[in-house]
């Protein structure tokens, strides 16, 4: 006895046509490449950035690579009234190591000033989890909520309103760029120098090319709000320094698609334009997917990233990895900055204006990556004593 599979009818013969139709639709969705007009870069090209400007850029880059100095954000105030109150600290996702650590540090700091019942809310990210956290804070009578690493309050507008009615002060930490307007849904926020990070990356890339025009690729994840401004910052900085000579191209890859799409997308971009010398990543979690694409392409490009995650700074120490710069914060410092803002609103003080409420970033490059050492990981510890000095009448440790 033999077994014979059923034969297909005519319809499957249309499979290739249908498949091609899908391809056609997809091609129809191709937007023109997001490029500025410009001419290809080349090692032989003449410098378009003057030596004076390059010297200024060098100074700025070197300053950004130094250990940041702590500056008092505002006047000292009494935290005696915080004793007995409690806050809930919720990271954007517990899977993000830096954000998770920052959220836990905020709780530790709150406990150290007498808010001993403060808690950390572990979650896997996403509005559903954040709603649960906010509901917990409202139902359990918390006095304050720390939203850590830029949970968008607009995505939780009903919860923000409910929290306000319940008398809960919500402070969003590391929410937006310092130049962005403050959110009116929350009591206060702290911000980041997202755009400045990208500008310094452009400066470093042009220093690397000794002022010659280069082409650049920006990888965005536009579901993350600062991403859009960061791409624009790259474009603006190149236009200011390079005019039309530098071509800037952008690819938007959602965070969830990094594993499946990012490497091939960067490879394709480098095939399409081998003159790309700088790949800007708005989130240094993109790094593991970008590096193999650059390495296998043979293109002499480097990454210029935002984030300064310790694991990726470590990669800079290996010269085989084509990494230019990576700028970002120290999460412990940001925890203190956020806690300071939260303590102010809970103590009926005026919050620090959003354009001034930020922790300084540090620019990392292979030249200073060795300084990434515990316990302060290249940021010093002056900020701890500085902030503690602002919080007067705190209970003794």
């Amino acid at each position, binding site marked *: 006895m*033999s077994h*014979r599979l059923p034969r*297909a009818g005519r319809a*499957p013969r249309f499979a290739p046509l249908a498949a091609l139709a899908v391809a056609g639709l997809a091609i129809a969705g*191709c937007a023109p490449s997001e490029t500025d007009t410009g001419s290809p870069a080349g090692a032989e090209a003449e410098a378009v950035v003057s030596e004076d400007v390059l010297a200024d850029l060098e100074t700025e880059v070197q300053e950004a690579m130094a250990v940041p100095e702590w500056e008092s954000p505002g006047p000292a105030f009494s935290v005696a009234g915080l004793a007995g109150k409690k806050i809930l600290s919720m990271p954007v996702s*517990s899977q993000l190591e830096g954000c998770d650590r920052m959220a836990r540090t905020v709780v530790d700091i709150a406990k150290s000033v007498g808010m001993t019942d403060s808690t950390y809310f572990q979650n896997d990210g996403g509005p559903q989890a954040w709603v649960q956290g906010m509901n917990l804070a409202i139902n359990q009578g918390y006095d304050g909520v720390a939203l850590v690493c830029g949970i968008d309050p607009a995505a939780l507008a009903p919860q923000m309103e409910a929290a306000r009615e319940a008398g809960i002060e919500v402070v969003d930490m590391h929410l937006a760029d310092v130049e962005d307007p403050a959110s009116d849904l929350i009591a206060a926020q702290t911000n980041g120098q997202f755009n400045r990070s990208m500008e310094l990356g452009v400066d470093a890339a042009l220093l690397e090319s000794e002022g010659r025009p280069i082409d650049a690729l920006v990888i965005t994840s536009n579901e993350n709000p600062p991403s859009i401004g960061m791409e624009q910052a790259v474009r603006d900085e190149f236009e200011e320094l390079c005019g039309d000579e530098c071509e800037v191209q952008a690819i938007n890859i959602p965070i969830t698609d990094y594993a499946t799409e990012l490497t091939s997308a960067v490879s394709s*971009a*480098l095939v399409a334009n081998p003159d790309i010398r700088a790949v800007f990543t708005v989130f240094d979690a993109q790094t593991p997917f970008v590096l193999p694409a650059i390495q296998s392409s043979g293109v002499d490009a480097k990454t210029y990233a935002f984030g300064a995650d310790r*694991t990726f700074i470590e990669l800079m120490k290996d010269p085989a990895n084509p990494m230019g710069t990576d700028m970002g914060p120290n999460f412990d410092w940001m925890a203190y900055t956020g806690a300071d803002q939260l303590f102010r609103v809970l103590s009926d003080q005026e919050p620090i204006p959003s354009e001034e409420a930020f922790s300084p970033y540090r620019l990392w490059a292979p030249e200073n990556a060795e300084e990434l050492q515990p316990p302060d990981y290249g940021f010093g510890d002056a900020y701890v004593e500085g902030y503690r000095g602002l919080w007067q009448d705190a209970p003794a440790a």
Partner: protein
Amino acid sequence: MSATETVETTDPQPAPSVAQGSGSVRGRWGEKAALPVAWLVLFIVFAALAPETFLSMGNLSNILGSQSILFMLALAALLPTRSGDLDLSLGSIGGLSAIIVAVLNVNHGVSVPVACLVAVGVGGLCGAFNGLFVVKFKTEPFIMTLGTGTLFGGLVFWIANSTTIVGVDRSLSMWTYLRQIGGVPVQFFYCLLVMLVIWYVMNHTPLGVRNLFVGQSREVAVLSGINADRIRFGAFTLAGVIAALAGVLYVGTTGSAGPTSVETFLLPAYAAVFLGATTIQPGRFNALGTGVAVLFLATGTAGLQLLGAQDYAQQLFYGGALVLAVAISRYLRRN
């Protein structure tokens, strides 16, 4: 959900109802060649639209090399699918394998070969775990592997401490993504080798025939004296091993492993398996068809990227291919 297909039993004589006349023969060959021809046309279209870049060695390397993780995972998914089951845990097994390699190498200083062997072994154990619960306890594979996949995913988060581990020994990248043969990353040839082995076993050995019978009609296979349980258990176990290899390729490609590293490849892998069932051996889940489908998807993705397509255009292509694959596969089964 089951991937079981209908089967038609006939006498040893030539089938009377099918493939009679030159028209039918042409149709059958046309059907077999449908996807490869579509792939070729797609290739020509992109080559015409972007001749300088699409036909470059760099792009060929990208098409063949950058989708190796998907390729390997699709081959893993092929095995249980061909024997009439479905394994939704393969992405998590790949992720578990990746994180084991990273943790052993980065955190514990274990050499890359040993770490990879451990990871592949664990992948096999996970596959056997699936096989045990699905086959021995006669549970629905869709539900059971959904559960075990979540379980393995939880293990990944636990082992990784919910973070991405970077800094895996560069030698693994050299043996997978960075070393090239003819400009193509060597990991593509690993996938090709696995595909050819599966193809040979499936088409030229008694084991392959028994596997086909089990997949086409389990009851008939059992009545024919085939130990269907053993075939299915073996398919789950081997799928776990190959999914673990996909995890190893992932670590080699990125030099890192995260909590959700390989999981995201699962649906595209099944898209390739179902799309592959429409070609080479239409109506059967087959290795060569799966390979062609992976390359079809990779070509479409690379071409769209070269043309500057936005992410949604690629999703349109991928999603459309998946919808077509499932619809065509279903149609074939009904006929």
